C-alpha cells in the first residue's frame, strides 16, 4: 500500500519532466527536413492526396494545436503509423521491445558478474598489484568504443572460432541466451568499465566504515564480515550505479544491436533514421525515455527495499 502510494507520487513528479520530453521530441520532429506527407504518400502522390494527408495529420494547424494533438494522441497510445513498416508505431515498438529488454537485462546480469568480483578483488587488494592490473585493464576498456569491442568479439569468437552465431535472435529462451551472448557480453564489458571505478571506491568506503570496524572488533569471521556487512551494503551502490548508467547502457545496446544485427529497438531506430520515418523516430525516442525513467523508478524501489532507512512508511 505504502509502496503503491510512493510509486504514484513518483509518477506524478515525472509529469512535468515528461511534458518537457514531449516538447523536445515534438520540436525535433518538426524540424526534420522533408515533407512528412510526401514521405507517407510516396513520390507519385497527387497534390490532392498530399493535401488530404497534411489535413489528416494536422500539419496545417498552428504549432500549439499540433503539439496538443501529439500529446493527446500519445497519451491515448496512438503514436502514428510507421512509414517504413506500414503498421502502427506502437505495435512495432511492442514487437521489438522484448528483444531489447532481454538484451539489456542479460547485459546488466553479465556486468554485475564481471564488475562485481573485479571491484571486490581490487578493493580488498587496494594499492597492490591485483588492484593495479584490474584498474589498468578496465581503463583501457573504457577507451574502447562499444562497436569496436563488438566487432572484435564478432570476428574472433563468432566468425573465426565459430563458438557463437554471428547475428540474429534465435527461437526460445535458451537459444536467445546463446544468440545474444556476444552482444550482451559486449555491452557488459563496456558497462563494467564504466561502473568498476565507482564500485571499487564504494566498496573501499564500506570496508573502512565504522560498522565494519565494529564487526571486526566483535570477532566475527571474515566470511560473515564480507558476506553480511560488506556485500549487502556494496549491493546498494551497485544497483544505484547501474540505475544511473542505464542511459549509457542503452546507448551501448543501440550500437551493439547494429553490430550484431539483433532485431531490437536500437537497430530499428537507425533504420528509421535512414528511412526518415518520422513517426517511428518519434515513437522510439519516446520509448527510450520511458524505459530510462522506468529503470530510475525501479532502482529507487529496489534501493528502498534493501535499505531500511529509506523504507517507505
Amino acid at each position, binding site marked *: 500500500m505504502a509502496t503503491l502510494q510512493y510509486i504514484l507520487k513518483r509518477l506524478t513528479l515525472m509529469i512535468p519532466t515528461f511534458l518537457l520530453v514531449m516538447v523536445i521530441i515534438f520540436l525535433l520532429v518538426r524540424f526534420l527536413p522533408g515533407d512528412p506527407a510526401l514521405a507517407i504518400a510516396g513520390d507519385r502522390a497527387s497534390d490532392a492526396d498530399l493535401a488530404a494527408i497534411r489535413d489528416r495529420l494536422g500539419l496545417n494547424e498552428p504549432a500549439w494545436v499540433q503539439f496538443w494533438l501529439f500529446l493527446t494522441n500519445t497519451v491515448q497510445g496512438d503514436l502514428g503509423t510507421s512509414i517504413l513498416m506500414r503498421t502502427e508505431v506502437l505495435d512495432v515498438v511492442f514487437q521489438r521491445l522484448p528483444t531489447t529488454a532481454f538484451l539489456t537485462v542479460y547485459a546488466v546480469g553479465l556486468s554485475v558478474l564481471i564488475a562485481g568480483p573485479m571491484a571486490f578483488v581490487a578493493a580488498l587488494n587496494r594499492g597492490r598489484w591485483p588492484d593495479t592490473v584490474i584498474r589498468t585493464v578496465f581503463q583501457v576498456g573504457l577507451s574502447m568504443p562499444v562497436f569496436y569491442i563488438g566487432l572484435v568479439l564478432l570476428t574472433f569468437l563468432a566468425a573465426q572460432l565459430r563458438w557463437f552465431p554471428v547475428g540474429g535472435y534465435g527461437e526460445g529462451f535458451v537459444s536467445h541466451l546463446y544468440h545474444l551472448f556476444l552482444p550482451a557480453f559486449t555491452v557488459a564489458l563496456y558497462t563494467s568499465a564504466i561502473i568498476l571505478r565507482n564500485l571499487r571506491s564504494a566498496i573501499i568506503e564500506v570496508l573502512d566504515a565504522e560498522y565494519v570496524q565494529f564487526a571486526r572488533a*566483535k570477532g566475527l569471521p*571474515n566470511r560473515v564480515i564480507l558476506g553480511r556487512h560488506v556485500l549487502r*551494503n556494496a549491493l546498494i551502490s551497485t544497483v544505484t550505479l547501474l540505475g544511473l548508467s542505464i542511459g549509457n547502457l542503452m546507448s551501448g545496446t543501440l550500437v551493439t544491436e547494429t553490430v550484431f544485427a539483433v532485431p531490437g529497438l536500437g537497430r530499428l531506430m537507425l533504420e528509421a533514421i535512414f528511412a526518415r520515418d518520422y513517426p517511428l523516430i518519434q515513437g522510439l525516442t519516446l520509448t527510450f525515455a520511458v524505459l530510462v525513467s522506468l529503470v530510475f523508478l525501479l532502482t529507487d524501489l529496489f534501493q528502498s527495499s534493501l535499505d531500511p532507512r529509506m523504507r517507505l512508511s
Partner: protein
Amino acid sequence: MEQTPILEVEGLCTTFGRGGQTLPALRDVSFTVGEGEVLGLVGESGSGKSVTLRSVLGLARRYGEVTGSVRWQGQELITKSERDLRPIRGRDIAMIFQEPMTSLNPLLTVGQQLVETLQAHTDLSRKARRDRAIEMLDLVGIPAAASRLTDYPHQFSGGMRQRVMIAIALAASPKLLLADEPTTALDVTIQAQILDLILRLSSDMKMGVIMVTHDLGVVAQTCDRVAVMYAGRIVEQGPVRQVLRDPHHAYTVGLMQSVPEGVAPRTQLYSIPGTPPSLAHLPPGCAFAPRCAASTEACLATRPALLRVSEDRQLACFNPKNQTKGCAA
C-alpha cells in the same frame, strides 16, 4: 590493586601508510590494565588514544605497521594472525566506538547484530541466543527490549544506539572493554547515564575498562588510573587522584586548567597556547616543548623518556612541576 595485570602493552608503535609517506601515530606506548580496573586514556584529538585501542585489538594493522608487544593474559597478540585473534576479539576484549550513528550497520536489525556476536563466540541455541540478546538489551536499559530486536539502528536515538552498542560489545561477557570516547557524540544528560552504565557493568562483571576521552571530568568520575597522551606518546601516568591533585607534566597541568571549574563568570577561559604538532613533522625533542612555558634547550634537543617517579607514577619530563623528587636525566 597489587595483582598481575590482564593486559600488558609494551613499546607499542603504530605507523600509518606504507611506502612513500608514513605517519608515526604511536611511539613507544606502554601501560597495563588490571582485572576490573578502569584506565583513563586522555589527550587532545590526534594524540593517539583511539589508535592505541585499535592497535591493541589488531584493527590498526590493516592501515599500517604495528610493532611492540601486547600481552593478553600472557598471550602475545601482536604476532597472532587475524584468524587467531578472532576468538579474543569480542569474547575476551570488546570495543565500543565513539559514533553510535555510524558504528552500527544500518541495514541489519539490532537483533541480528547482537545475535551474530553470540553466534561467533558461544554454542548457544538459536532460542538461547535470542533470550540472551533480550537480556542484554534489558541490562543496558532499553525499554521493551523483546520488541525492539527487529528494529533497525535508525529507529533508535543516539543515546539508545550507544546502549545497543554496549549491549552488543558485552554480549559475550568480555573481561576487558575498550571504550573509544563513548560519550563524546552524546548530549550532556545522556553522557552521565552512559558512563554510569559502563561503570556499573564493569563492577558487576569484574570487567576491566580502558576509557578513552578528552574530558578530564570523565576521567575524574570514572577511572582508577589515568595515562595522559600527547603526540603519540604517554607523557604522564598514575592513579587518578594523585595525577589530578598533583600533576607533574606541564601538558597535564594545561589540560586541567582548560577545564572551566570554579571560574568566576566573564573571566577568560584558559587554553594551552599553540597547537599540537603534526605527526608528519615531529620535533626531535619533547613534542610539547614548543608550547611549554618551562621548556629549556634540553627539552628541544632530546626527548625525555617515560620514567618511574614514585611507586606508581610515571612521567616524561625534564622540568616537572610540583615535584619534590627530581627525575631529570
